[in-house]
């Protein structure tokens, strides 16, 4: 499965790019699986996602819980808790 990942705020800064297209192995089923998979991709990912429980994720631009399935996702946003307003 190929999916577009988009990063924001300090997640973006630590990973070092705003977005990328990646191929996911079949073992990546949930949002939690995805975050753990990314952590293994290198030091910058490890640094960005070292505390995955604080990371927020959106699937196709809608908020998703960590136990949500990523099947059907075209775009997955990964970012810190929001601080707008």
């Amino acid at each position: 499965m190929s999916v577009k990942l988009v990063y924001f705020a300090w997640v973006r800064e630590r990973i070092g790019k705003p977005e990328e297209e990646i191929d996911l192995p079949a073992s990546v089923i949930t949002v939690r699986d995805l975050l753990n998979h990314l952590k293994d991709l290198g030091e910058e990912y490890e640094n960005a996602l070292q505390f995955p429980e604080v990371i927020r994720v959106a699937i196709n631009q809608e908020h998703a819980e960590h136990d949500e399935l990523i099947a059907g996702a075209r775009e997955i946003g990964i970012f810190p808790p929001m601080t707008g307003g």
Partner: protein
Amino acid sequence: MSNITPTIRVQSADFDLQSEIDALIARRKDIGAVVTFSGLCRDEQGALSALELEHYPGMAEAEMRRIGGIAVKRFSLLGLTAIHRHGRIMPGENIVLVIAAAPHRQAAFDGANFVMDFLKTSAPFWKKEHAADGTAGDWIAAKDADDTARDKWK
């Protein structure tokens, strides 16, 4: 049932409050109460030179529209506008504007307050501080108090 469609914008430009209210009210004569909330950039006793507002284009508007739709139904609003700026914002400048209109005052107050509480915790915006001494600043941390404020609407 209300068929009001909220006015939602994400923009780098500033906004004019009176113009936004005028547009919301148009020629309606059933609105008795309009509450606006403006969020401004504070300078933190001179420590801050600017805020950098990052957002998730597309999702930011969609999330604001979703929150706005819930507020319109819940408080039977006759009008709702939410505008959030992005980019570099200086102390004293506007960051966000919410306008809620209703026949009576409590619904207008509650509508604007509700939208702000959910916008803070759910709309994909992030603030980075630029320090007055020129050093690269930190990303502002989310506050538990904002989750608590949101949860009062449960």
